[in-house]
């Protein structure tokens, strides 16, 4: 700096410059306006979330125009409603109206007279009357435009009966998958999802935590370890569908003898192919390992170095230090990270569609070598169907999926709180 800066002194002598005043006012006003814009943007996310949940709930109840192939009044003995029918009567009616083979199958599943009244009533409805949902409406439409809907139904489907239907029922959760939206359920899909998740946890947790320990506790800064680190960050950003393609090429095709169970003699060689729960689980495991590693690294890094030093000072080896001191302190963070990534795997659809391919599965999975469908795949397939009623059951399945995800996340929070109380 050369010399003292010259201060233009007229500014000091004019305290009230009108232009300056308005300028400050404008600037403040601009600031205040933008503040509201920022706040509004923040609210947009929350609004989107609420609208989403409301839309989905809206689709799980509502009016439905149901048409019976055979009207119930023709089936039931005169003067009785479907709720009053006894199983003895149902037995007689079924014998008269369904084919002999079908009747025998039903009897073999469980003798009709030994079933509950509700089951018998359902048998009559779905085996003989065979209802079809011609059109359905959401809850809001049903409440607001009920008269129009009534008029529309009488005009377009004169034989249909307008009923208020609750789509998300206990039967919906416990029935197997079906081609008919009125009887379709999601138990097959739920079990498929659970089987896959178990495999994902068994495979991904040890690998992810092991890699995190290696990178944080053992790896020094050499070439290989740098490559591993960059690589993990990149893998975390690879689109999930790419993992699906990898799974298809590697687990389904190259490892087909293993994933189909053929080399263990588990499956029927005629129908065996690698599109099984095992292949799906391994693929999703690969998908979430990088996320578990990154979370695990953070948790391990957060354990204070002084703990390690104290352990070494008492003569512990490196592994003893890790096993007895680092891991117990890092476990809440590791578990939280793992559960959150498992939740991600639970909702993952694209890679499983690629691996599972044309899945129309009506039987529950029995082993890791079974073919599978999962909750998200089921939702995707139902969403793709044009009939109204599939939209309603897709919405119901979404509610179940979201509830399961919330439960997983709540477990993560619970575990974190519980372990952090005990250990830190």
């Amino acid at each position, binding site marked *: 700096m050369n010399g003292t800066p010259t201060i233009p002194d007229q500014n000091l002598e004019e305290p009230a410059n009108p232009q300056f005043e308005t300028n400050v006012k404008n600037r403040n006003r601009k600031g205040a306006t933008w503040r509201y814009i*920022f706040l509004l943007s923040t609210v947009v*996310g929350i609004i989107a979330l609420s609208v989403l949940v409301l839309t*989905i709930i809206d689709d799980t109840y509502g009016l439905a125009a149901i048409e019976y192939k055979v009207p119930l009044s023709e089936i039931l003995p005169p003067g009785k409603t479907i709720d009053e029918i006894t199983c003895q009567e149902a037995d007689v009616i079924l014998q008269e109206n369904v084919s002999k083979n079908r009747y025998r199958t039903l009897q073999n599943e469980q003798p009709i007279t030994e079933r509950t009244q509700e089951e018998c009533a359902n048998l009559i409805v779905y085996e003989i009357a065979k209802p079809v949902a011609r059109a359905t409406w959401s809850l809001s439409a049903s409440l607001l435009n009920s008269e129009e809907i009534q008029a529309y139904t009488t005009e377009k489907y004169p034989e249909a009966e307008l009923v208020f239907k609750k789509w998300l029922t206990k039967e919906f959760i416990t029935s197997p998958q079906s081609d008919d939206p009125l009887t379709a359920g999601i138990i097959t899909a739920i079990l498929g999802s659970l089987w896959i998740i178990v495999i994902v946890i068994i495979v991904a947790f040890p690998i992810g935590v092991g*890699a995190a320990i290696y990178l944080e506790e053992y790896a020094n800064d050499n070439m290989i370890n740098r490559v591993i680190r960059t690589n993990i960050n*990149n*893998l975390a950003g690879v689109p999930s569908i790419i993992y699906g393609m990898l799974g298809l*090429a590697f687990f389904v095709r190259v490892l087909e003898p293993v994933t189909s169970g053929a080399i263990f003699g588990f499956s029927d060689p005629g129908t065996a192919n690698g599109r099984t729960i095992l292949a799906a689980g391994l693929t999703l495991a690969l998908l979430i390992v990088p996320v578990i590693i990154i979370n695990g690294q953070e948790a391990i890094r957060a354990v204070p170095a002084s703990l390690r030093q104290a352990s070494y000072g008492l003569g512990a080896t490196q592994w003893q230090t890790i096993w007895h001191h680092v891991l117990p302190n890092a476990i809440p963070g590791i578990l939280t990270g793992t559960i959150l990534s498992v939740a991600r795997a*639970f909702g993952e659809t*694209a890679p499983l569609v690629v691996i599972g391919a044309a899945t129309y599965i009506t039987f529950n999975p029995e082993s890791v070598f079974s073919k599978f469908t999962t909750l998200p795949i089921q939702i995707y397939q139902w969403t793709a169907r044009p009939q109204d009623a599939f939209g309603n059951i897709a919405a119901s399945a979404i509610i179940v999926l979201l509830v399961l995800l919330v439960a997983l996340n709540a477990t993560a929070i619970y575990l974190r709180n519980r372990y952090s109380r005990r250990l830190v």
Partner: protein
Amino acid sequence: MAQRQLTNSFPIEIGEGNRKVLDLRKRTKLHERIIQGLLFICGAISIFTTIGIVVYLGEEALRFFTLPEVTLLEFFTGTVWQPQIDEFGILPLLTATLMTTMIAMLVAIPLGMFVAIYLSEYASPKVRSTIKPTLEILAGIPTVVLGYFALTWVTPILRGVFGENTVQIYNTASAGLVMGILILPLISSMVEDALSAVPISLREGAYGLGATKFEVATQIVVPAALSGITAALILGMSRAFGEAMIVAIAAGAGPNFTLNPFEGAETMTGHIVRISGGDISYESVEYKSLFAIALFLFLVTLFLNLISQRIIARYREEYD
């Protein structure tokens, strides 16, 4: 990461000029070596995954490109994708992907920036601790659910506003809009990290010169965090580029070379989901073509992720 080096070997004096190193360390036992080896393998699995992706995608893609009916030039310049008549031009799929990505970014960039600025510069800790988890819930919603939302809620609204004749049932606009909501939390949380990393002294300097809060936020903090913001935006773009289920459900089921966001057009990911969801033979050209698309998708997202990481690494150095 620097290894915690422990000095537990001491040089000691035994008599005149007779030095001996006494090593107090416990001998590493064999099983410890084995454990370390196993842990290394766990880390190395990630490398095998990458190699697996490159090898298997590359292998099938190579088979695809060596077919007589396919040329690299046609693949990148052809405007028709119809495997049934041996037309393999990726442009229709690529434009659809770019359109959904662009619409998503148009939603997510301003919103994400505003949310980040609000959370980092304006919100009290209490407000921040309620809003951040809510946004994270949004990020945790399965994309198949968002796809359903796009198809059953956003599309009818678009059709109501712009007319049923202009907006088709399946369109890239609704898929893009919902995808914007999906990547909004990702962008806002990364941008917020970048903004919070700007040293407080810069803000105080600006306040000292009489700047308003808005001026500090937009003219001081945002420019100072620009590299971090860029990294976040690129990462968001890469996520939108590779997103599959929303577009598979809402954007349309058929390649369509168009720039009209209200028309249905199938994206690269949507095409893979639809075709592999059907029954295709491993030997068919269609099956191989999926791997070519997937490899291209992988390379683009990898490129975007690498740029983003490079930028983050550089901007960390600036303030640390």
